[in-house]
């Protein structure tokens, strides 16, 4: 394996894992509530901006990694309680429109608070610098992000299969009325799920902050990538989000190396191929 191939592979994994954390949040919310959150990318952006402020004030990345996603989670929970809850009985279009309105507010809102310019954040001291892999130096922080993906996946898997809370959520996802009849507080479950999904988006935002420029359009770019991931993997499927994210991450990274001219179009080609041969997504269920 040549040096450049190795680096692209690692870059692809790092980006892919970031995409996974975002997409899994999108897919959790959709899988349980049947709601597609257009503002999910904006939540990711808000997470990054909050990290910026927290790091500037306290110089503590780890505090930001805990606090910013929690705040974004509460933003999601408030959205669900105040607005989305009023729309479950109505056509799906209205839920889409509502989250779209939220996207407009947040995208413009961050400009009011943080200005229209771009910002950057340094990686935490512990993870600064580079490491030597087979004679190539590679930033430690990117490896950290690539490792964070599987950790998040494992934690979520344990939560949903082993804990009572996770099982309750799955019960509400499978059959809302039955869960309700058995005494599950479905309303609270929905709010909790929206908190969890938004938390994941916020966390991806914090993780992305030292890697990418923080700016008002960062949410739009990532939400489209996340949509591609969930369509490729299968909307509502956990392993699908993981697989889709890894594939898209690698496609983008190796696209730079092997097909620089059409690199920008590659994700869409991937999307078109999947829609042609397997419209329900690689690991999506029938229906």
């Amino acid at each position, binding site marked *: 394996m040549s040096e450049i191939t190795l680096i692209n592979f690692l870059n692809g994994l790092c980006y892919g894992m970031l995409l996974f954390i975002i997409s899994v949040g999108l897919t959790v919310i*959709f899988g349980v509530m049947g709601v*597609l959150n*257009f503002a999910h990318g904006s939540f990711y952006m808000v997470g990054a901006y909050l990290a910026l402020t927290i790091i500037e004030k306290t110089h503590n990345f780890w505090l930001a990694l805990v606090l910013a996603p929690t705040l974004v989670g509460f933003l999601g929970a408030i959205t669900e309680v105040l*607005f989305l809850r*009023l*729309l479950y009985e*109505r*056509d*799906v*279009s*209205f839920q*889409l*429109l*509502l989250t*779209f*309105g*939220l*996207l*407009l*507010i*947040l*995208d*413009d*809102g961050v*400009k*009011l608070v943080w200005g229209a310019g771009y910002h950057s954040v340094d990686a935490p001291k512990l993870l600064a610098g580079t490491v030597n892999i087979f004679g190539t130096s590679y930033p430690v922080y990117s490896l950290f992000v690539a490792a964070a993906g599987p950790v998040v996946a494992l934690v979520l898997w344990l939560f949903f299969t082993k804990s009572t809370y996770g099982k309750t959520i799955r019960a509400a996802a499978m059959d809302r009325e039955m869960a309700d009849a058995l005494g599950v507080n479905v309303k609270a479950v929905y709010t909790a799920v929206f908190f969890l999904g938004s938390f994941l988006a916020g966390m991806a935002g914090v993780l992305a902050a030292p890697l990418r420029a923080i700016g008002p359009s960062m949410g*739009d770019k990532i*939400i*489209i990538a996340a*949509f*591609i991931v*969930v*369509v490729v993997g299968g*909307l509502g499927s956990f392993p699908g989000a993981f697989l889709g994210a890894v594939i898209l991450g690698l496609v983008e990274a190796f696209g730079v190396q092997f097909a620089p001219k059409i690199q*920008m*179009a590659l994700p*869409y080609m991937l*999307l*078109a191929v999947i*829609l*042609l041969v397997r*419209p*329900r997504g690689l690991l999506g269920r029938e229906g």
Partner: protein
Amino acid sequence: MRKALAALLLVSLFVFPFFSEMFVLLFATEILIFSIFALSFNLLFGCTGLLSFGHAAFFGIGGYTAVLLAYHTHMGFIPILLLSAVAAFFSACIIGFFCVRRDEIYFAMLTLGFGMMVFTVVHQWRSLTGGSDGLSGFSLPELSLLFAKVSISPPKTFYFLTLFFFLATLLFLKRLLDSPFGLIIRSIRENPERSAFIGVNVSFYRWVSFVIAGTLAGVAGVLFVFYDRMASPSMVHWTMSARPVLMSILGGARSFLGPVIGAVVFYILEYIVTQFTENWMIFLGCILVPIVIFFPDGILGSLEKWIAKRRGRK
């Protein structure tokens, strides 16, 4: 009563340019162009039940094709318009084919995705599209009417040209919606499963509706570039796709003239709000949210319901 009101409106649309200021005339022209755009979007959303977040793709493809033709050829207005509509038609055929493969939620994601794909192409292909600078500085094509050639450059002429296309769009959509095709797409909107059970090829009709809507959006795009004398990537950005969405919701997606009313209100609001603040989008979001929650029928729809209710009481 209704007919009298409609006739009065129509007459005033024809007469007012002779009395109004230049600013109002230009303002009205832009509203008419965006009414066509919003009406084309609402064929998909209000009539077929498909919410597209990438409709600007066809608006932009129509516009860019027109500008490129005006740049590199000496064609008249009508051939340019036809060829640009054909370009929008074929791209809608291809993109629509992929977007109708899954149901509504997927449709929303896919239209946004493919819409941004078109934006990326326009933005990156500098040699053809001028990249982020866009294309300007072309000479306006002439309009051949029977034996005379007319310049479309005077604002009044361009207003009447736009008015012609606006009225043609209204007539066309009215006929379309009253036809069996119109009934079928509305049955799909109400219940896709049942429509499929009675033998309707749901994705085919959705596709046809998508293509018609895309082609019409292309026509609106042509008018817009000749009005604005420029084609820029903002024409294909998702914020442009958001405009017809907001206009239709604002005016009322279930009312035939809803998108038109929405376009008028949208422009008046934009004019007022941007005098105070640059953050127009946050304002838009703040009106969209309560409208979605409390007035899902929009201005015209709510008004129609209110009138019907009052009549019922009498």
